């Protein structure tokens, strides 16, 4: 059993919220998840994603920042019913067959039972901190993307390392989400 932990720093990130956010993002050609609390791929692989948080809030993360900068420029013109959300989160990736064991020591959500194809996004409390967790990969190769408030970043990162310590084969910081 092994796990890897990574801090994600190479991805651009932006958030939108509001009653018209879904319609407007659709007009901008961004693929959107249909259900609340789910995610979809917006680029070539599972790195570029759009997460729908609740009904009317979206988190976009991409390797190529240009597309997001374009959205940012558009929104600066104050689109009715679409509000930008500053996303300076700390982002992590936990992968490996021990990933579920690591999460089970920190969070009371049954991540192992989530089906990969359902593409669910989970908002929960982990070690006392609000986090968003997106399971990726497949049953054999599970990978979790995790976001938290950046001011909790050091605490979450050091706790992850402490819990995952016995399983760690490679801790990269910084790294990517791929």
């Amino acid at each position, binding site marked *: 059993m092994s796990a890897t932990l990574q801090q994600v720093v190479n991805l651009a990130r932006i958030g939108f919220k509001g009653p018209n956010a879904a319609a407007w993002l659709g007009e901008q050609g961004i693929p959107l998840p249909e259900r*609340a*609390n789910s995610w979809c791929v917006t680029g070539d692989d599972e790195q570029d994603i759009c997460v729908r*948080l*609740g*009904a009317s809030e979206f988190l976009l993360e991409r390797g190529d920042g240009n597309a997001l900068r374009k959205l940012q420029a558009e929104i600066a013109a104050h689109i009715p019913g679409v509000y930008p959300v500053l996303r300076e989160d700390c982002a992590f990736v936990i992968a490996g067959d021990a990933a579920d064991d690591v999460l089970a020591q920190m969070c*009371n*959500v049954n991540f192992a039972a989530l089906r990969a194809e359902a593409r669910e996004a*989970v*908002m*929960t*409390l982990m070690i006392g901190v*609000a*986090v*968003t967790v997106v399971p990726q990969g497949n049953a054999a190769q599970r990978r979790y993307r995790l976001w938290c408030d950046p001011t909790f970043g050091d605490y979450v990162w050091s706790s992850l390392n402490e819990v995952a310590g016995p399983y760690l084969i490679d801790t990269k910081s910084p790294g990517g989400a791929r």
Partner: protein
Amino acid sequence: MKQLRCPLNGVRPVSEFAYAGEVRDMPDPDACTDPQWADYVFNRSGVPGVKREWWCHIASGYWFIAERDTARDAVIDTYPVEKLREVHRA
């Protein structure tokens, strides 16, 4: 630990939720008497029975309504706040 079904996030342990008391109708501030207003502000019913309560899923900031039987310590139903407003209009 008890569980609660959040209409947005599904079944979660109660430690993921915050509680804000019973849903209570505010009397019209301009029409009510001082005693009526004081009763609204300060008095709460502790009588066991079915209560409509405000609950918040902390991680998502999602507020919803839970109907809870405090005599049996059982949650009967949970639903979005919009439904509460519909009930009010009706």
